[in-house]
């Protein structure tokens, strides 16, 4: 079924538009030195792309924590500096089978840990928007999928894969002014995706338009036997059919669409400029027939603590394998090392191989799992995660088919189809300020709840009138997020497309 949909989309788009418009490898060689989005670029394909495949002619970049046989997979870590995976990730295989040109690997925060794409052995990614600024005014592309977002924003590819554990696609999409989808957990295979936190990690797509995101999504959102968390087909179709049954009656998706505005997503740290723009968008949506519903997700304030306990705990476990023995960087132990303990030998490689942020998170997670802390930290965080899921299930009209016991909200009157909120509390910060404070964590307040809930979330740039000569900060991109119930990714993408069009009509 998906394939048919994909073909329809393909036909409606001018294929040659992509393949002949520009030579992306040329663009990369011109722009990448200043943006630093790509860390490896593939050879130009020797054969011209076949034209009858869903992604024919599309140049797609891959975040460097997704395994590729033909290019290194460094995860921006010294630990995997020279690592080449013996296999391709399922998503890479699917992209190639769909005719895409895998153009290269993109910079990211080490093992996906960070919000600013500065924790990387490849050097920080520079936000390509308003590129004429001086060096002291260079801004972050956001993280951890900063290279993927910047590559799209700078026109170095048609689309890019990223990964999103707590906002790592949506935040850079917001900072770089591109569209980024974190799909429902379990829709896109994680086989070949280097684990940060298995229960939260999602592969997602960044592109300049929602249409392109959808094209790629349709090609790679398939069940995969190699991923034990891959959602079964029955559940996928239950959710998507339920969603389309609610919407098919009206001609415009916005007509009678119930949009929830969660009050907890406007923390005091948020910039007033962003709030103004979001208000403006809401007003426009309302004028096009959408029903705006204020909603409350009361557990949101605990989401950040829950997220950081769970994500770091899983990270401490997942990163235990990097000891330099089977693969990766191995550092010989010094003469003063106690060689009778294996852990002491490993400590040498791990101390050198992991960056500061990764070490910090491993330590936090190790503590959260220790016998004394487990109940108060890990288990408590899991309980909060359940409360957050309950919050979401209460406000959505569609039940969560991915949960153990999907149940419809009892009172449908106040329920909504999607939630809408700002993607970030501010526009892209200056790279100079990137390391200084805790604000990079506070930012995550807006993105981690959807991750904890396993829900689809799409950040689209708020359409704004182009002001070519503007020099004030207003011209930096602002993203707005659409969050749906599990499995309603198509609906979220359609709403995203409608948002993009607000300024065009």
């Amino acid at each position, binding site marked *: 079924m998906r394939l048919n949909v994909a073909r329809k989309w393909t036909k409606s788009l001018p294929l040659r538009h992509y393949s002949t418009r520009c030579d992306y490898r040329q663009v990369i060689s011109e722009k990448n030195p200043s943006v630093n989005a790509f860390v490896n670029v593939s050879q130009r394909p020797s054969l011209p792309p076949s034209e009858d495949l869903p992604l024919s002619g599309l140049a797609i970049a891959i975040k460097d924590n*997704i*395994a590729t046989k033909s290019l290194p*997979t460094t*995860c921006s870590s010294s630990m*995997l500096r020279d*690592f*080449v*995976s*013996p*296999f391709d*990730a399922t998503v890479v295989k699917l992209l190639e089978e769909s005719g895409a040109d895998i153009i290269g690997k993109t910079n990211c925060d080490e093992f996906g840990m960070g919000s600013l794409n500065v924790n990387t052995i490849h050097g920080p990614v520079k936000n390509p928007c308003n590129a004429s600024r001086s060096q002291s005014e260079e801004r972050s592309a956001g993280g951890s999928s900063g290279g993927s977002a910047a590559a799209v924003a700078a026109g170095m590819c048609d689309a890019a894969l990223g990964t999103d554990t707590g906002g790592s696609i949506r935040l850079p999409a917001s900072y770089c002014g591109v569209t980024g989808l974190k799909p429902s957990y379990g829709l896109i295979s*994680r*086989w*070949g*995706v*280097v*684990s940060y*936190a*298995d*229960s939260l990690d999602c592969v997602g797509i960044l592109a300049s338009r929602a249409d392109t995101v959808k094209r790629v999504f349709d090609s790679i959102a398939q069940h995969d*036997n*190699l*991923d*034990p*968390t891959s959602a079964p087909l029955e559940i996928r179709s239950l959710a998507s059919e339920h969603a389309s049954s609610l919407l098919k009656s009206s001609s415009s998706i916005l007509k009678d669409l119930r949009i929830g505005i969660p009050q907890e997503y406007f923390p005091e740290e948020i910039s007033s400029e962003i709030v103004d723009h979001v208000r403006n968008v809401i007003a426009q949506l309302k004028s096009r027939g959408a029903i705006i519903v204020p909603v409350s997700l009361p557990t949101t304030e605990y989401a950040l603590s829950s997220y950081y306990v769970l994500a770091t*705990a*899983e990270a*401490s*476990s997942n990163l*235990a*394998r990097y*000891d*330099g*023995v*089977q*693969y990766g960087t*191995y550092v*010989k*132990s010094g003469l003063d090392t106690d*060689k*009778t*303990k*294996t*852990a*002491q*030998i*490993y400590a040498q490689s791990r101390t050198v191989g992991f960056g500061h942020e990764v070490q910090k998170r491993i330590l936090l997670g*190790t503590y959260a*799992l*220790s*016998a004394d802390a*487990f109940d108060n930290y*890990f288990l408590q965080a899991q309980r909060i995660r359940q409360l957050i899921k309950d919050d979401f299930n209460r406000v959505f009209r569609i039940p969560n088919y991915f949960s153990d016991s999907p149940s419809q909200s009892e009172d449908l009157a106040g329920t909504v189809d999607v939630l809408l909120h700002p993607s970030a509390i501010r526009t892209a910060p200056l790279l100079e300020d990137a390391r200084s404070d805790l604000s990079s964590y506070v930012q995550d307040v807006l993105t981690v709840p959807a991750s904890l809930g396993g829900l689809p979330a799409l950040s689209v740039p708020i359409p704004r009138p182009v002001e070519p000569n503007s020099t004030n900060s207003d011209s930096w991109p602002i993203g707005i997020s659409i969050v749906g119930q599990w499995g309603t990714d198509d609906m979220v993408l359609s709403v995203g497309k409608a948002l993009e069009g607000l300024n065009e009509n």
Partner: protein
Amino acid sequence: MSYQRLLQQQTRLAASAFVVAPSLCRSSYIFNRRSFHGFRKYQEDPRWPGWQVIVGIETHAQIKSRRKLFSDAFNSNLDDEPNTHVVPFDAAFPGTLPKLNPKCVDLGLRTAVALKCDINRRSSFDRKHYFYSDLPSGYQITQQYSPLAMNGALQVTTAGGEPFTVRIKQIQLEQDTAKSTFNPRTRTSRIDLNRAGAGLMEIVSEPDMRSPEEAAGYVRTLQSILRAMGSSDGNMEQGSMRCDVNISVNRKGETPGTRCEIKNLNSVRFMMAAITHEVHRQIAFLAENPGEHVPQETRGFNEDTFTTFRLRSKEDAPDYRYMPDANLGVLVLSEARINEIKSTLPPLPHEVRERLLEKYPVLRDKARQASLDVLLVNNERVVGLDGEDAGGAIRWFDELCEGGRDPALVLNWLTQELMGQLASRKETLADNTLSVSQFGALVDMVASRTLTGTSGKFLLRHMLANPSQRPMKEIAEELELIALAPSTSSSPQLHALCTAAIAALPSEVAAVRAGNKNVLNKIVGHVMRASRGRADALVVRVLVEELVFEEKNA
């Protein structure tokens, strides 16, 4: 495969000296104190009068599946080349994910049913963390919080002892580790990932055993159950079954003492020796330190001195930081699947014994029990890999007896001769080429005295070494094995041999004629040698005696 090459390039030998292996299993053996009262009655043991010994056992049994627990790699044999049964998941390559092998679950369930456990309809997998060279991912996937099955029981019979029940606390599925071999000269470790990620069942008993002999009885009974279920080879010497034993002692009538755990015992004999040494050690400690408890420790066993030694104290116990595995989620077992397991359960050893004794009363003879045990307990592979029916010794026995053969003769030839010769060839019934009908023909020829026992054994050895589809009779004829006197009567050939012997041994003949009958054996032996085993000793004896006295009288 490119991966193999990559692994060879990328595998490095960690330069380190390892003092002790970390535990394979958690040291959380919890004594349920309430359950002690009245569960087993105190029995005086002359080795340690006035003391009660309490033993509980954690058994790790390798699951007899084709493939590993969470990967597609085939399980390996001990003699396979190192690092040849490895896929990227086993080496913990980034981006790999586990995939539960349902065959391992089925074999775990069979074991759970055979051990009368309650099966958890929902169980889950957890990660147990520690850094060690035999653990590529830095964690072992096990079932800490919600095991596959709980609350079982095993009826144990020991030679000469009363049968008793050992309660089974739980059965959990978990991954085996890799094998690391340390070379003290070069101070390097070699790592073989063939075993990494193989499926294990951890079977935890309650502390219901009271002596080394009872512990041995429990392990042997458990072995026979695992083999009958086809869930494990249960071979301690080859490492497919390993035991950790918890031991405490207390004075008669007092509450149980503090336990010590002895790790990684790999034979029943060592286990009994370890328990005996540990009991004496703990009693000596308590005698020297009145009012104190035995310090809780994890101990190892020295196979040269037959003593236990301290590995680590309770305070040094590592924190394994157990965490639910987010990839594997919950293992949900349907009623239908559990029923399927129950309805296809292979018969238990005691059930087979009862059936055989019922069907073949001649086997009830006490003298045949040892052979019957070989058939039932040290059974060949009744069940093949992944729990598939592989025929095995019981089916051979049934098929051989179906043709109206003497069950006692069949039992003897099957267990003593065929299984004995296979064992010395390191082969099994399943992988030898001799068919049931060929073996049946051989037994028939022995029964009809077409072959003597000696010739039968020779023919069997020949057939195992030189497999052939031709009729056994033909091969026997070709090898000149057919008995010289096919029936109890004589034959010209045999007659000639006897006459020749009498001619060759005049002084012995004289002695026999003088009344020294013992010397007759010497003449019979001469004939037997000359016949190359084709003669029946009894027939020869009668014939020689006849001829000796015939000549005298003549």
